[in-house]
C-alpha cells in the first residue's frame, strides 16, 4: 500500500544514489589510474617538450646525453617525478606522463607526453644573463596566455638527484615567480589604477603635488623620496616616471581618493586586503601561484601609504605583476590567464588537454586601462627606449627593500605595445648592487631573444 510503496521509494532512491556514486568511482578510477600508478614504482614515463621540441623532462635523464647543466634553468619550474618539489609542472601533472592506461596497463613504448609553451633556448639565455646575480623572470604572450619563459635563480640541477641538497642556496627548490615578493615601486601601477578608477583621468591629471625630497604626512611621519633634492611640482605622469614617493603619499591622503575605492580596485585586481577572506591563487596547469596581499588601515597611516608604494605589508608575486600588464596592454582591463601546457598526448598518442586562452574577470575599466597604458608607455619612451629599439614598451621599475632594508631587490615589469610581438614580462634581481647587471639589461636580452624566436627569418635576413 501507500506506506509500503513509500518505503520502497526510499530504498530505490538509496540504491540509485549508491549506483550513481559507484559509477562515478569507476569513471574516476579509470581516468586517474595513470596518476596512481605513477606514484607506485618505476614506470615508463613520457617526456615534457618545449615549444620547439627540446626535452624539458625525461625521467631517465643523465648528464652524458644532455650535458651536466642542461636542465638547470628550469629545475625548479618543471621539477621531476621524485616528489621532492611538489609545486612544479611535472609534479602536478605526473599522471599525464605515465605510459599507462587502465585498460592496457603499462606501455613501454607509450606516447604520453606534455608539450610546453616554454622556449628553452630563450629561457636559458636569460638565465645566463643573470650572471652571478639571483632573481627570476617571466614573460608571456598577453594575447594568448602562452608562457614563453619562466625561470628562477638559484635553481636546482635535477640531474644531481638531490644529493647536493645541503650545498644548495636557500630558495633553490622554489620557482620565485609563483611566490610573494615585495613589489617596491611597481606597486604604483596598482595605486595609479585605483586613482584612475576612483577619480577619472581628467581629475587625476589635474592634481599636482610638490616634492621637496621629504614629505611629512598628516600623521607626522616622514616619507622620503629617492631623490634627496626633490622633484618639485609634478603631475601623475611625471611622478609615475620619477617614481616619486611624496607624490603618491599625498595622492593617497587626498580626500578626492577615498580609501574604500583603493580597497575595491585592489580586491578586483586579486589582492587580499587586510586579511579579509581567503588569499587568491592563480592556477597555472596545477601549479598554484600567489597573487597579492596588502593592508590598508587609514589614509593618513604611514604603513598604508608605504603599502600603496609597494613597501610595508604589501606582497605580490612576479607572475601577478606580469598578468596585470596584460590587462593594461590589452586595453580592456581583463587579464589573459597564463598557461604552460599547450597540449598533451595520451599513451595512445591522442592529443588531450589542448590549451585554450582564458581570461580573468574585469579588474578595472577599459578607460583606466587605456590611460594607464599611456602613462606606462610614456615612462618607457622617456627612460627605457633602448629595451627594444623601434617598438614602444610600457614599463615600470621598482626597488624593493627587503630584510629590514639591508638589501634591495630590483624589479621591472612591462609590456611590448605591438600586436605582432605581444609580450608582457616581469623581472626581479635579488640584492641588486649598482654597477652590476640591471633589470633593463636582462629585459634587453629577453626581448631581443624572444623577438628572434618570433621572427627568425627576418633576423637572419638583416
Amino acid at each position, binding site marked *: 500500500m501507500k506506506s509500503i510503496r513509500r518505503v520502497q521509494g526510499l*530504498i530505490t532512491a538509496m*540504491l540509485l544514489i549508491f*549506483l550513481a556514486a559507484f559509477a562515478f568511482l569507476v569513471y574516476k578510477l579509470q581516468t586517474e589510474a595513470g596518476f*596512481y600508478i605513477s606514484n607506485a614504482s618505476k614506470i615508463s614515463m613520457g617526456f615534457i617538450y618545449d615549444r620547439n621540441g627540446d626535452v624539458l623532462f625525461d625521467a631517465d635523464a643523465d648528464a652524458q646525453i644532455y650535458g651536466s647543466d642542461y636542465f638547470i634553468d628550469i629545475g625548479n619550474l618543471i621539477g621531476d617525478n621524485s616528489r621532492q618539489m611538489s609545486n612544479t609542472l611535472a609534479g602536478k601533472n605526473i599522471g599525464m606522463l605515465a605510459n599507462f592506461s587502465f585498460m592496457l596497463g603499462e606501455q613501454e613504448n607509450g606516447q604520453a607526453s606534455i608539450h610546453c609553451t616554454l622556449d628553452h633556448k630563450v629561457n636559458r639565455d636569460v638565465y645566463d644573463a643573470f650572471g652571478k646575480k639571483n632573481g627570476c623572470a617571466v614573460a608571456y604572450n598577453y594575447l594568448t596566455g602562452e608562457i614563453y619563459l619562466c625561470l628562477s635563480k638559484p635553481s636546482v640541477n635535477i640531474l644531481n638527484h638531490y644529493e647536493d641538497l645541503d650545498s644548495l642556496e636557500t630558495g633553490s627548490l622554489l620557482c620565485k615567480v609563483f611566490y610573494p615578493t615585495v613589489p617596491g615601486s611597481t606597486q604604483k601601477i596598482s595605486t595609479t589604477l585605483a586613482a584612475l578608477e576612483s577619480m577619472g583621468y581628467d581629475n587625476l591629471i589635474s592634481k599636482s603635488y610638490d616634492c621637496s625630497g621629504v614629505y611629512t604626512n598628516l600623521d607626522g611621519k616622514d616619507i622620503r623620496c629617492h631623490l634627496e633634492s626633490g622633484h618639485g611640482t609634478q603631475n601623475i605622469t611625471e611622478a609615475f616616471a620619477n617614481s616619486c614617493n611624496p607624490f603618491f603619499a599625498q595622492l593617497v591622503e587626498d580626500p578626492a581618493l577615498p580609501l574604500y575605492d583603493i580597497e575595491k580596485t585592489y580586491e578586483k585586481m586579486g589582492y587580499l586586503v587586510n586579511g579579509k577572506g581567503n588569499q587568491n591563487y592563480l592556477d597555472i596547469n596545477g601549479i598554484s601561484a600567489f597573487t597579492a596581499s596588502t593592508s590598508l588601515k587609514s589614509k593618513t597611516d604611514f604603513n598604508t601609504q608605504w603599502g600603496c608604494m609597494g613597501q610595508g605589508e604589501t606582497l605580490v608575486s612576479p607572475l601577478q605583476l606580469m598578468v596585470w600588464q596584460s590587462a593594461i596592454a590589452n586595453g580592456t582591463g581583463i587579464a589573459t590567464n597564463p598557461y604552460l601546457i599547450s597540449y598533451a598526448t595520451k599513451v595512445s598518442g591522442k592529443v588531450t588537454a589542448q590549451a585554450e586562452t582564458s581570461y580573468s574577470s574585469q579588474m578595472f575599466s577599459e578607460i583606466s586601462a587605456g590611460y594607464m597604458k599611456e602613462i606606462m608607455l610614456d615612462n618607457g619612451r622617456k627612460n627605457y627606449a633602448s629595451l627594444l629599439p623601434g617598438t614602444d614598451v610600457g614599463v615600470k621599475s621598482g626597488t624593493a627593500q627587503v630584510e629590514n632594508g639591508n638589501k634591495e631587490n630590483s624589479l621591472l615589469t612591462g609590456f611590448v605595445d605591438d600586436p605582432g610581438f605581444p609580450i608582457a614580462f616581469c623581472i626581479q634581481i635579488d640584492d641588486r648592487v649598482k654597477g652590476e647587471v640591471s633589470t633593463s639589461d636582462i629585459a634587453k636580452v629577453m626581448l631581443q631573444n624572444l623577438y628572434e624566436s618570433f621572427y627568425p627569418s627576418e633576423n637572419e635576413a638583416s
Partner: protein
Amino acid sequence: MYKNRLSYSGAVILLFLTHLSMLGLVFIRGSIAAPMDFLKLTGAVIGLDIGYLLITLWYKQMTYTLDFMLLCILNISLIFQSCFGGIHLSVKHLISCVMCLAACEAGFLLTRNHEWIRKNKKYIYILIFILFISIIFFTDNQKKWITIGSFSIQPSEFIKPCFILVCAASIVELHEKLKIAFFYISKDSLTLCIVALFIFALQWWCHDLGSLPTFGMIFLCALFCRFCYPKAKISKRVVAIVCAAGVLVLIAAWNLAPDYVQKRLHVDIWADRYGDGYQQCEALIGIAKGGWLGLGAGNGSLYKIFAHDSDIVFATICEEWGLLYAALTIMLILIMLMTVLMNPPKNYYHAMMTAGVTAAFLMQMSLNIFGSCNLIPFTGVTLPFISAGGSSMMSCGFLVGMLKAGQSPLFQHEVMKRKRQKQRQKARKAAQKQQRRSAA
C-alpha cells in the same frame, strides 16, 4: 523440489557454474604453489554449495532466492579471501561463512512473525543494554573487541540488527501522545530517540566513528518513515525542528570534532603517502595495477598491507580479479537488496525492517568502497559479506535473514493454525495410547 513447489534448476546450475568458473580462473591465471591447497579450496566451495542447497530443501519458506544469492556471494567471498597472498583455504573465513548462513536462518526465524517480535520488543531493548554493558566494561583498550580465548567478538556489530528491529517496532506502533512542555511527543518515538542517542554517544566514546554513519543512516531512514507513516501524526513543526537540529548537530560535529577526527577528515593522501594516506595510496595503486581484468588470483601485492582483507578489501579484489569482477560482485549484493522491490513485504513492520537493512548495507558498502578509494574520509569499516571477520559476517547474515523474513512472513493466524494442529495431533496420539492401553 523446494517446499514452495517452484523449480530453481537454472539458478542452481548457474550458481555452481559461477563458482566453477571462478575456480577455473584461479587454476589458470592464479599462482598455485601447492595443488593440495587448491583442491582443498575447491572441495570447500563445492561442499558448502551442495551442503547448503541440500539443507535448504528442508526449509519451509516462500522464497529461496535470497538463500541462493547469499550462498553465491559467500562462496565468491571465500574464494577471494582464500587467494590473498597465495592460494590456500582460508579456514577462518569458511567458518565465518557457515556462521553467516546460520545467522541468516536465525534472523529469518526470529523476525518472520512480526506480531511475535513486536510483542517481545522489550527483550531487544534488554539485548541492546547487555551489548552496551559488554562494550563499556569488557572490551579491550580500543573499545572494539571482546577477546575470549582465541576468538574476538565485536559487540557493536550485533547492535545493528537490534537497532533496526527497534526502529521498525517503534514506528509501527499506534502512538499515544504525551504533552511535554509545548510538544506532543509519543512514548515510542522518545524511547527510540533515547536509544539512538545512547548508541551514538557510545560510538563517539569508543572512537568507533566507522559505524556511526551506519547507525545514523538507519536512524535517518526510521525518521523518514516516521514522518511518512500514516499513524505518526507528527506535525510539520516537529519535522522542521528535527531537521534543523540534525543539520546543527552535523555542522557542530564537523567543526568541533576532536583532532583525531579532523585529521581523518582532511587528509591529502598523496602528500602523506607514507603516513596516514599509506593504506589508501596503496589501495588505489593496486586498483590501477589490476585494471579491468586483474592480475590473477594470488598475484597481487596488496596482501602485505594492513587490513587488506577487511578495510581495503575492495582494492585487494580489484587488484587480483579486476575492477569488472569486483564491480559485478557489488552488483550482486545490490540485486540482493533489489529483490525487496520486486517482491514487496505485506506489512509495515517488515517494510521498515527492509528499509533499515538496505540503509545499513548501502552505508557500510559506501563507507568501505568510497573510503578506501579516497572519495570520502577513510573509516575502518568492513565490506558486507566480503571482508574477513566473524562478527561482521554474522550480523550481515542476520540482516539478510531479516530481508528473507519480509518476503516469506509468517502470519499470526498460521501460527495459531499450526498450534491447533499440534494440539490435535497430541490429543490423537494420547487417545491412541489410551486405546492401546485399554486394548491391552
